């Protein structure tokens, strides 16, 4: 057996060993099916694709299990309550992103204080403190706009507040 085929088989065997009961049958089916693939490279691609499929399937299972509780809770709420929860989660997520960005800046400037006055430090400040969080806000707003609009509005609100903050900052310079 060629090393490529051994690698492919090893990969699918590991997937089979670690897959949960509901995916075990599928993982076994994928492993057996590989014996009927003639080319070693095709077998390796097959194994990689199957690994991805089982991994995604496990992710779906976990989401279903943990999401059930949240869905039950949400089902008991009225429309206004659902929107409020969505909006507040949007604000919370956006504030979390902003706090993480500020945390990175704080740690960076604590360890390398000279960077605060250096022009590289200013670019770092702009990139990590403004550009990256704002990009995340815009992308998240666009992605969530159709399916989770209240959450998208929450994120947009935090983005707008930070734009205003930025405008005031530049106006005072």
């Amino acid at each position: 057996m060629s090393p490529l085929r051994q690698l492919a088989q090893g990969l699918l065997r590991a997937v089979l060993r670690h897959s949960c009961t509901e995916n075990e049958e599928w993982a076994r089916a994928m492993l057996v099916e590989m014996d009927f693939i003639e080319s070693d490279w095709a077998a390796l691609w097959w194994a990689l694709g199957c690994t991805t499929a089982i991994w995604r399937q496990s992710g779906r299972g976990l989401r279903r299990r943990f999401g059930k509780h949240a869905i039950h809770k949400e089902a008991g709420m009225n429309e206004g309550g659902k929107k409020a929860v969505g909006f507040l989660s949007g604000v919370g997520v956006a504030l979390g992103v902003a706090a993480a960005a500020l945390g990175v800046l704080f740690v960076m400037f604590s360890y390398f204080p000279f960077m605060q006055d250096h022009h590289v430090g200013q670019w770092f400040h702009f990139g990590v403190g403004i550009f990256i969080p704002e990009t995340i806000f815009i992308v998240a707003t666009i992605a969530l706009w159709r399916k989770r609009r209240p959450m998208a509005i929450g994120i947009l609100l935090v983005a707008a507040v930070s734009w205003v903050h930025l405008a005031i900052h530049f106006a005072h310079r």
Partner: protein
Amino acid sequence: MKIRLSPQTLLVLDAFLRSPADWKYGYDISRNTGLKSGTLYPILIRMAEREMLETSWENSEEGRPPRHLYRLTAEGVRFAREHRLTAAKGMLRSASLEGAEG
């Protein structure tokens, strides 16, 4: 019964509809549809979860492990025929619109 009708799902449904009574192997479906295993199996798993697909293990021959087999259920055949028709109508409509515009 709900399943997202992506072009890949339609390909799989189409492959099953060619001979709905026959059991099929995963690798054969992959070759006939041109879908990679990472795309094909999530579709098969979802179809089986929604009871559109029945699965079975082949009787094993000497020295060979049994293979997994797939076939549409009666409900699956009905769903596949219905949606293949809808998809075909949609394609015809867009083709005629393009013809009218051109």
